[in-house]
């Protein structure tokens, strides 16, 4: 399948997530997944933390802020996407959802929203109930954006220390989930790029 824009040399991914606080566990989870993908030969552009504080999406109000423009440009080129959100009251944050709302600007693209791309979801919370419902709501948005949620979703309980100072995952069981997610994203992107259309 060819993308609307020129294909990059390596599979290209966009990571979006975190919280208003720089260096949150959610952001670390996102950056760790990005690192795994880079190790596997992919390229990743991460938009995380406070830089996601955008004005509320308003279809009529243009031009878009520079960060929104960069996110839109990157997602238009992306072969895959990573989303990471904390569970706020049992669902993803408004911060992340507002960023995704800007994808409405791609409505008339040849490949609108996230159509045809694989999207990996990472949900973080203090308890399992909120993680489950946050994951479900993230995946529902992925479907609405015309994309393929990866089989693996990473669910991380953020009560202990999960990452070391280099950003690597300290919990073997969780690490396995991150590796599974990264591999599925890479796998889908590579096949998609190689397939004729």
């Amino acid at each position: 399948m060819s993308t609307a824009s020129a294909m990059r040399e390596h599979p290209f991914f966009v990571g979006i997530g975190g919280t208003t606080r720089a260096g949150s566990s959610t952001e670390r989870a996102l950056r760790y997944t990005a690192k795994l993908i880079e190790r596997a030969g992919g390229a990743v552009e991460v938009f995380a933390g406070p830089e996601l504080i955008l004005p509320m999406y308003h279809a009529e109000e243009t031009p878009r802020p520079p960060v929104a423009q960069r996110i839109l440009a990157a997602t238009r080129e992306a072969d895959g996407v990573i989303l990471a959100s904390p569970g706020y009251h049992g669902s993803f944050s408004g911060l992340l959802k507002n960023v995704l709302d800007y994808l409405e600007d791609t409505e008339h693209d040849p490949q609108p929203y996230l159509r045809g791309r694989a999207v990996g979801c990472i949900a973080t919370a203090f308890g399992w109930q909120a993680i489950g419902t946050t994951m479900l709501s993230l995946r529902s948005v992925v479907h609405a954006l015309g994309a393929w949620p990866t089989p693996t979703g990473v669910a991380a309980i953020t009560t202990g220390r999960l990452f070391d100072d280099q950003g690597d995952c300290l919990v073997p069981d969780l690490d396995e989930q991150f590796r599974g997610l990264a591999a599925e994203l890479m796998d889908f992107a590579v096949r998609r790029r190689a397939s004729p259309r």
Partner: protein
Amino acid sequence: MTPANPSPLITFIGGTSRPSSISERALRFTASIVESLGGRTEVFAGPQLILPMYAPENPERSPVARALIQSLRACDGVMLASAGYHGAISGLVKNALDYTEDMAKDASPYLHGRAIGCIAVAKRWQAVGTTLVSLRSVVHALRGWPTPLGVAINTTVPAFDDTGACVSPELERSLRTLAGQVIEFARMRSFFERMLPQVQPGFYEDALLNMYGAYPEQAG
């Protein structure tokens, strides 16, 4: 179309204990679309799905249960259609899917590497939405890829006539898209499998090998 697997096998599972239920008609109609797209189909539908309750400790399998697992092992994609019973998948469809536990130790376990199209049928929209979400959650647990589009059928709106023909052009369009996504995914995977050694000599295989431990399709 790619020459690698021009005719992928899609396994269809769904319906209710009543023959010719709306979910069964949706399933069979989608099977006819898949065939028109060049796919092969195996359908397990309606009363045929009245299987003994899955019991992992009991090694006996009914002929239908055996045929179902055999089909799932061989297939390149799956289509699921469930009625929404009290806001979720029916026990009938869920029990049939519980038999995939027999595939837990396969080289390609459960529904690994396959696209799964989901059709939810219920009276009114609320149950349709929650049934679709529960189908997709099961697909994730079975390591499959739920298609971007899921089809929601509200039975208070006419959908199929007595011959099984679709009477709603919008629904037919959705089912065509759904069938297309399952087939497209199957062809994408088979094409890549064939091309892998030529496309990226050593590069991506090594990367994936490091992550998976073994490259999934080649391990089997």
